[in-house]
């Protein structure tokens, strides 16, 4: 799963100025760290659902993607 995130998903998110890092995968829960543009995206849930469907298609696993967001200090106002 970590390899999949790094090789398949990460380059795509980086193409949008985002960044994703694998944190853990336990009991069907895939936890990822989102940085860059992803960290402040208001509609990131749509992207997480897309990641779930990509994993289902490519790896045949049903996962729930949970994101931790790490905003840089200059966007961390709320």
């Amino acid at each position: 799963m970590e390899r999949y995130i790094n090789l398949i998903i990460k380059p795509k998110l980086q193409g949008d100025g985002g960044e994703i890092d694998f944190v853990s995968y336990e009991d069907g829960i895939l936890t990822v760290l989102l940085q860059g543009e992803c960290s402040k995206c208001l509609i990131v849930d749509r992207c997480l659902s897309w990641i779930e469907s990509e994993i289902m298609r490519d790896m045949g696993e049903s996962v729930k993607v949970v994101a931790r967001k790490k905003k840089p200090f200059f966007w961390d106002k709320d």
Partner: protein
Amino acid sequence: MAHIKVVRRSMRPEEWTDLRFGWLKRYIYEEKFEIENLKVRDARQVTEMQYDYYPEGWRNLHKGDMYFTPDGTAFFDADVVIPEKLRGKELWFSLKTAAEIIVKVNGKYVGGVDPNRDRILLSPYIDSDYLHFEMEGYNRSKPDDERNPESLSVRGCRQIFEGAYLATVNHTVLDLVYDLELLLDIAKSDLFNEDYRSFLNREINNALNLIDFDDLKNEDVAAAKQYVDDVIYANDDYKGSGDVALIAHSHLDIAYYWRRIHSVQKNLRTILIQLRLMDRYPDFKYTHTQAFTYEMLEKYYPDVFEELKEKIARGQFEPVGAMYVEPDCNIPSAESLIRQCMYGQHYFREKFGKTINNCWLPDVFGNSWILPQILKKSGVDYFVSNKMSTWNDTNRFPHNNFIWKGIDGSEVCACVPPTHFITWNMPSQIQENWEAYQDKNLGGQTMSMFGYGDGGSGCTEEMIEIMHRFKKLSIMPKTEHTSGAEFLEKNLKDNKNLEKWDGELYLEMHRGTFTTKSKMKRYNRQLEFKLREAEMVSTLRHLKGAEYPGEELRDIYKKLLINQFHDILPGSHITPVYRDAMDDYEDIDARLDKIIGTGEKYFNSLNFPRKHLTFIEDENGKSIRFGKQGNWVIPNLPALSCGDIPWRTYAGDWCEIGKKIVTPFYEIEFEYDGSIKSLYDKELDREWVNGEFNKLKLYKDNPGVYDAWDILPNYKDREVEVKIISPLKTVEKNSEVASFECILGTEKSTWKRIIRVFRQSRGIEVENQVDWNEKHVLAKAQFDCNVLTRKAVCDTSAGFVERETHRNTTWQQARFEVCHHKWVDMAETDGGIALINESKYGVGLLENSMSLSLLRATVRPDVTSDRGHHEFCYMIYPHGDDFVKAEINNIAYEYNIPLRKADLTCENSFGELYMQAMKMSENGKMIVIRLSEQNGRRGKIKLGGKVKILNFLEDIVEETDTIEYKPFEIITIGIET
């Protein structure tokens, strides 16, 4: 008694107007027919015209479906039979989208939709009742156009499809909408007369009162429109002032939050949109920069390029900016900037028969003092750049229309428009421009650019429609929609009133771009010199009968120039852009190695004797530098010659290593961290150190949103502790060099410093091997020199610039970090210290201190920026006399150009001038030699015969047998073969 703040909860009259204006917009489309058989296929772009497709293939796309993927391109397809009720009517395609979509109908490119526009006129392309749609969209979760609030609200990789339609437009409604856009902008802007704004608010309300929004009738809308004409436009009691030229453009970053491959379609979409506006509005003129973008269009979309050529010939579409791309103008060398002009101009001449006489760099992060000469000799009389007026953080740049005097005395007419280069042509923006304009009554008109940009897009129908209404408003400044060239010729040419700015156009912002993405800067420097060598070697071989690889060299040069784009080389881009650039650099490096080849003997490509210590790689060598074995030798090679360089072992003990390190030149006391406590110069009998010297300093570097771009003046507030992991120890001592090594570090990073002292050189080299894993940290090497001076001298790559080191006024305060090239020098009249580098550009100068910027660790736009392994070096070079007599520039050239093998010689060396380039002319008929005066001197070189003097475009200007040069002049000569 408690105080209760009175809050108005009822609707204000202005809010009631806004509400009704929103309702009115709902009636822009009269009839709509939803295209329900649209299919979509997801993909990801992998090269300029190639895509990886998702395995799902084509699927139906209905309103409410999710579409687009991260970094995704989507292809759309639909066959539509025009419904009977719409046939014969003016027909539009409507699609509200956050993506950038190119629309092709029945095989013809009809335009584009994006967050700034949602409809395309179809009627001119309809020749039957059947329409075949092919569309390509690139999703844009990008920050460009974030000045447009409507596009901001739809950002994100995954979008909800809002439906695609065939539609007819109610022009009565649309006309009134444009009137109200215009009038409400004035009514809401406090830049305009308060009484007029009250008048507008009242009369707009009166006009809208004529419409019953519960039962909207066309005749009521027409009546409201008539009211606007009769009451608002007819009123000329309120007089505005000013004279503003409106120039349409679109700023297109070749790469930024997108890769270079994406700019192919961004450019197509932008150009298509402008061409279609020209079809509809014959008075509309649009400017477009960068020969590279035209080249891409020609290569990938030849049909649209042919159409573009027609519009250029008609004068509607105007190529501006003589350069190949809009490059950074701090870091590229003089020769690179010359090539930007030469390759740009040659393209414009070849394709359009035009030499562009302006340089158009709206977004560039400051401009080197060497530029005016380069422009002038490249057929460019005018310079346009917006940044200094709108982005300076400390001082207001004092001119907008002025003369810019360059380092050599060349002058160009310059325009730094008073406001941002991205506006949407609203009255308030035009009024703001006029009010900010500082050359009223002297500079003629002020320039206001309009059009969305960063990722292209450009002008909209709305901008033009609104512009057509300006003349109806007496409150507005006088406006004229004109071309870029017309504006410059009309207002700046022969204008004796223009003030003069003599100096660099330093941008008081984005000072971090001299340092961010360190590896790119290093590659760029190395490859600039390697290209010089490759052209020279190829020319000399050509004279001996070999074929000159002109096309290959041109292709390589262009690749380097593209990567000097102002969001690539400065480091302000996302991760994939960095990867592309590094791939390009590796490719260029390998191709140049192949061209240069090898030989039996070492070739001195410099046109002065190579007599300073240098490192030559040799697998049997006695020393190691950057992990490679070799020897430190003095080549003693005459100018432009080749020879053997024997390495001889020196038998004497030249270096005493104890508490002090004693060399033939110095007595040095090191600290454990590699900094120098004392550097006593035996030859000059003086101490060079006065404080921290060669001290590695790390600072918390939190500049804010412009993370990759900026270093703030408060960076020294918080220092990061640097620990000594392994204290300085001797690691090498042979007949030429003694090396000392220490390892420093933080919790996340390690920093190995190898410091070398030499038997035959005054230089002290510092090699750095860094595993860098910091975040928001700036690394500098600090040098507090025992020198009393108020200025430092910085190399520009074609001459030097003196910079004050005091902080007396805000102008010096703002320049706390400046750009330099190969060296910086701080001296008294009889000696000083030069810092010579092979890849660093940022330096801080304060009183007697120099702080060389080494590394940064920013997170926006690239979270991974600069993390990883780095290696680089610099040389501390104390010297007697001034930097010219001490030959610091020569030493810096030798330090930057490694000796390579090639069995070649050249008889002419051209005396005191630096040979910046030797190449075959682009037409292959002449040897072109570029000579640069870099020491601030005047002189003559008598030649054996006549040569041609060329401009930088390789046009023959005159013939001479004597080169007469003045300080900092760059001279190009052509010798016919």
